[in-house]
């Protein structure tokens, strides 16, 4: 049995403490923390841009930032949040830390590649900071041609390069996960004994591997066209701006699934643990993840219903978009059914997880409205779309990220976080989020287009409400920074398994030793063997408790 408290045992944090031992580490757990530092920094960069955007929109004239600065701010917000926070968020931190632990491995398959991924990520981050400091980009994160290539006088090449290099980091990390999950599972860890978080990371990695190269080629062509005018998207030479949109959305729609699939995985860990009940319909949950990742590749055209694609293409893409919503709906029903006859406690991770399900459901249902062709014609490129995807990406992914962070915090740091503060932050996040983004659905249907630095004065009330909500949200996102930081120094020491959970990651000490397990575990059980009647549980390596 593993050590109960931190004590004198060597952990991955304590066995070496030089700077080089961090910067040259091949330990997946340390690399997870390195990534955590990087993406947290970018989260606040993107958040600062969001703050300015909301401040600017308090007043209809938009004089605070003015057109040029505002355009740069929403572009920066989009690029930083999408590629430097949301896409890497759960995979590179929680995924990196937990995948080997959950499958009973000592590390990822390619530890050097894992470290290289962090360096590449930071190089792309430096390029991003360069274009931000040098004067920004005003194309929107979508880089639509021919504006981005022939008309914009901003730092398009640097931005495209940042995204291009960032893609290598995505691919390296995803490749590592896919290969690791295929080859390094502990004895007895069959595919259908994998925790759903592993399934989520696996599905997202497959999407990353197949979609990111297309984005890489697309932004490369953007950079070449902007720099040298090679003409590939230039209508004057016969180039087709719609081809760009097809290539871009072929990546960028699946990118939404890259963001949400790991979040679904996190929710599927949290809800059974705090409901003390096996997850409802395990195999359905796993198949749904895979189905989403595959069907997600055939819906990109729903971003282009009004862009001039053929009516036939519009109908086909609308149909596929409804089909891809089916597995998501199944997941929502299964999470809800997992609460049935459970023994539910409301610790902070569970509050975040329930918030995730609620906000994701809202985002998904409004997504159905957008998939409906005729409604989309009215609300596409308005705040309705903005609200919809923030419900998925922020309400969904970020809530799940915070939920997962709290849940595994004792494992990662060996310390317990202050529960009351964390519950407060979770509730505040949910409230602040809804106050910020719900009014944007209404603004959208009223016809306020996105990317407007100024707007008609009769829409001011909703915008002020949204900005007020954003300030609540900002507080809710800043709170964990303080109390989690506090817990690092003064938090109570965590036991190996503070949540009485069943996964292999809880079968080693908190924090784990450098090589994860003293002995490779032997897996004999399906995940989530909780019993709600008496609170007992069976871990995946077959130890019955309580």
């Amino acid at each position: 049995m593993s050590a109960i408290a931190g004590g004198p045992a060597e952990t991955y944090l304590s066995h070496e403490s030089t700077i080089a031992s961090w910067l040259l580490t091949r330990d997946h757990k340390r690399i997870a923390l390195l990534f955590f530092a990087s993406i947290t920094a970018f989260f606040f960069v993107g958040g600062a841009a969001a703050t300015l955007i909301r401040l600017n929109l308090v007043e209809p004239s938009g004089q605070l930032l003015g057109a040029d600065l505002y355009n740069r701010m929403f572009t920066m917000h989009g690029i930083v949040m999408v590629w430097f926070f949301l896409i890497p968020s759960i995979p590179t931190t929680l995924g990196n830390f937990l995948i080997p632990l959950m499958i009973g491995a000592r590390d990822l398959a390619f530890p050097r590649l894992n470290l290289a991924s962090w360096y590449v990520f930071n190089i792309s981050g430096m390029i991003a900071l360069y274009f931000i400091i040098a004067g920004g980009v005003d194309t929107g994160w979508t880089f639509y041609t021919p504006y981005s290539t022939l008309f914009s006088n901003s730092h398009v090449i640097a931005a495209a390069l940042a995204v291009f290099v960032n893609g290598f980091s995505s691919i390296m990390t995803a490749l590592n996960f896919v290969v690791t999950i295929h080859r390094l599972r502990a004895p007895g860890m069959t595919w259908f004994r994998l925790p759903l978080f592993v399934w989520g990371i696996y599905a997202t990695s497959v999407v990353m591997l197949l979609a990111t190269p297309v984005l890489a080629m697309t932004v490369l062509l953007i950079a070449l066209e902007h720099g040298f005018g090679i003409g590939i998207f230039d209508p004057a030479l016969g180039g087709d701006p719609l081809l760009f949109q097809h290539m871009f959305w072929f990546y960028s729609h699946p990118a939404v699934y890259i963001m949400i699939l790991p979040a679904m995985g996190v929710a599927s860990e949290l809800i059974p643990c705090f409901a003390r009940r096996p997850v409802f319909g395990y195999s359905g949950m796993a198949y749904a993840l895979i189905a989403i990742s595959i069907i997600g590749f055939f819906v990109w055209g729903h971003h282009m219903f009004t862009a001039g694609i053929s009516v036939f293409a519009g109908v086909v893409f609308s149909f596929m978009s409804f089909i891809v919503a089916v597995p998501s709906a199944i997941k929502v029903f299964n999470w809800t059914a997992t609460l049935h006859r459970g023994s539910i406690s409301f610790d902070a991770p569970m509050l975040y997880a329930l918030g995730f399900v609620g906000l994701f459901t809202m985002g998904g249902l409004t997504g159905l409205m957008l998939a409906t062709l005729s409604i989309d014609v009215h609300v596409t490129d308005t705040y309705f779309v903005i609200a919809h995807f923030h419900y998925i990406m922020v309400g969904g992914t970020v809530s799940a990220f915070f939920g997962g962070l709290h849940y595994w915090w004792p494992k990662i740091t060996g310390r317990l976080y202050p529960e009351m503060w964390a519950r407060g932050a979770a509730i505040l996040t949910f409230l602040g989020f809804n106050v910020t983004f719900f009014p944007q659905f209404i603004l959208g249907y009223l016809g306020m287009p996105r990317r407007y630095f100024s707007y008609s004065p009769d829409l001011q009330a909703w915008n002020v409400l949204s900005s007020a909500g954003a300030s609540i949200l900002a507080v809710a996102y800043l709170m964990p920074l303080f109390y989690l930081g506090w817990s690092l120094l003064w938090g109570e020491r965590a036991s190996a398994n503070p949540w009485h959970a069943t996964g292999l990651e809880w079968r080693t000490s908190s924090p784990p030793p450098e090589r994860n397990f003293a002995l490779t575990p032997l897996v004999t059980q399906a995940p989530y063997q909780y019993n709600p009647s008496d609170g007992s549980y069976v871990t995946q390596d077959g130890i019955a408790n309580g």
Partner: protein
Amino acid sequence: MASLRPEMQYATLDQQTETAQLGMWVFLATEVLFFGALIFGYYIYRISYPDEFVSAGRDAKFLLGSINVAILVTSSLTMVGALECVKRDMIPRAVAALLATAGLGFAFLGVKGYEYVQDYHDHTVPLLSFVLKPDQHAPAELFWAFYYVATGIHAVHLSIGIGAVLFYAWRTRSGRYSSLYYSPIEVLGLYWSFVDTVWLFLFAAIYPLGRAG
């Protein structure tokens, strides 16, 4: 022979070898999508502007492209030869085969460079020196844009391959690989064959255009 023990995250050397191969296959899948996106775009335009593309394609250097096909196919042969030699512990011969592979790679780049110079003299280089032929219209330039992006990116891949082959030739020479452990050479061979195959696709897409009938 430190490399005869697997790295600590693997149980056996076999597991490590299989994992490395799977890793390369997955990487090559991403590469297929990377080149696939470009070739897809190329064919979209080729279908939209058939006359202009045929007319522009006539100026592509068919002979030089064909020579490069021969060079790369031969280099794949020497690459496989190197692997077989390592498997049979014929290390000096394996090093020679690897050096031949790298040499053929350089030969390819040489021919490609010569072709670029010829293209320049024929005024088919957008930006630097481009003149539309009398019967051509603007989209003919698109053909050449794709030509340079595609062959350029392929050349970058090949250069990385040459560097890797030289590196592993040096490692082979210093006795790191043998019939007991040759996984890196095998994985390197996968990459090399892929770069070779990409050229076959590019050749088929670019050079025969305007020559059928």
